[in-house]
């Protein structure tokens, strides 16, 4: 591993542990809500994926 050419910031390295914890809670909540909505027949709106749906290898020259 080479030394970073910019300072990543000690605070930013520490905060990621907390932010990851928050993320886990948020994602868990979303999953639960999705399931509850699913029970009542409310489907979550699917966002189009801007990268994957586009070209396939077939249209490469």
């Amino acid at each position, binding site marked *: 591993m080479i030394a970073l050419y910019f300072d990543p910031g000690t*605070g930013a390295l520490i905060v990621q542990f907390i932010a990851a914890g*928050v993320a886990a809670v948020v994602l868990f909540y979303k999953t639960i809500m999705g399931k509850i909505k699913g029970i009542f027949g409310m489907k979550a709106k699917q966002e189009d994926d801007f990268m994957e749906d586009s070209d396939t290898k077939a249209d490469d020259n």
Partner: protein
Amino acid sequence: MESKRITSSFRDPSGFVFTDGDAVKRAVNPIYFPQYDALTQSGFYTTLFEKKYLIPHREISRSEAQIILQAEKIPFVNYPYEWSFLQYKHAALLTLKIQKLCLENNFTLKDASAFNIIFHQGKPIFIDSLSFDFYEDNTPWKAYRQFITHFLGPLVLSRYYGSDHLKMLASDIDGMTLKKLAAILPLKSFLSPTLVANIHLLARYEGKYSASKQAVKNRLSKIAQVKLLDSLYDFINGLKSDENTEWDHYYSQINYNEESYLVKKEFTRQWFADIDGRTLIDIGGNDGTFSRELTDKAELIIVADVDANAVAQNYKQVLKNKEKNIIPIVADVLNPAGAYGFNNQERFSFIDRVAELKLSGCLALAVIHHITLSGNIPFDLSARFFSRMAPNLLIEFPTRNDSWVTFLLESKRDFKDHFDFYNEAEFERSYSVYFEIERKLPIRSSERILYSMKRRNNN
């Protein structure tokens, strides 16, 4: 051929980019050989190329001192401060996708600069082959703060206060400081756990540890980091800018007469065929309606508009139609992106980047009255501007009887007399200094005139 180091490529000691005649090449320094070899041999570079996440490169020479790569050339370099909200969002999501894929393959992104992404062939693509490093187990993402200042900050500020904030990296080349960012965000941002953790808390910790360069001993498992990336992805993916602007759905709102619309389209097609056009810039091109008439002939069309929403509409169509030759960008003719950064040579100005492309034509429909009457730009100066865009110009001149022009003139109130020069004769006289007027067509049943012009050689 002359080989020249690109002046924007100096921040990362792993290597640098240079041009060799027409080709874009990248030198890799020995310090980065282990990473480069691992990325190549593991097939991860190939994966990134196949997914169209990273611009393809191939190795063309190798010595103990240097490896030289040749990268696919990107004709038009565009910058974050020229993207609409949706483009900015997609650039952010692409960065997160790449980091997640990196972790799955035991690599990590060592930087997350928004300047590492360019819109090319209809989509954002990552351009820095040397931004990847080995992932060490249980280490946090070192580029996390940069991701927040380059992507999340501008996106969230635009979400709350409008798309002008997407231009943040033009004034602060590395993004706004976290302290300032946290201070500007409205109180309701505290209702979002994602913003509390990733901006407010981050800003506080930054302040607390600003002088500390200590090694961080905490461990962040890969699973936890993926969760962090996923939640940022979800949050950014859900962000919407709900600004309404003057030019939203311009063509469907304005009472364009159907006939004059068709005349304009036909004139545009004919002009582009006459000049044997291959490449084009459309100034004030809104959502690209008129440029789309030329997509079958043109290799590259840059559609520039001041209105970020119109640019977003255009980008949506590019995605929907899978158009590879249209690049929608936000550009204000009255204040185009300048040359920024060290020596004023890190980010190149809009005009320099366009001039370098040596485009075949410039389209300027329904824009001169705004430049002249809203921006108070004399004809002489706007003619000079257009002469720098391309050797061929198609320009539409709305006369004084046009309803828009009348409205703009009325809004000058007492100073209306100062704009008496806004007329057909004066326009032709000023533009003739820079261009030769080749064809002139008053559009029937409208108060507008179409001109096709050729640049004079002495300019």
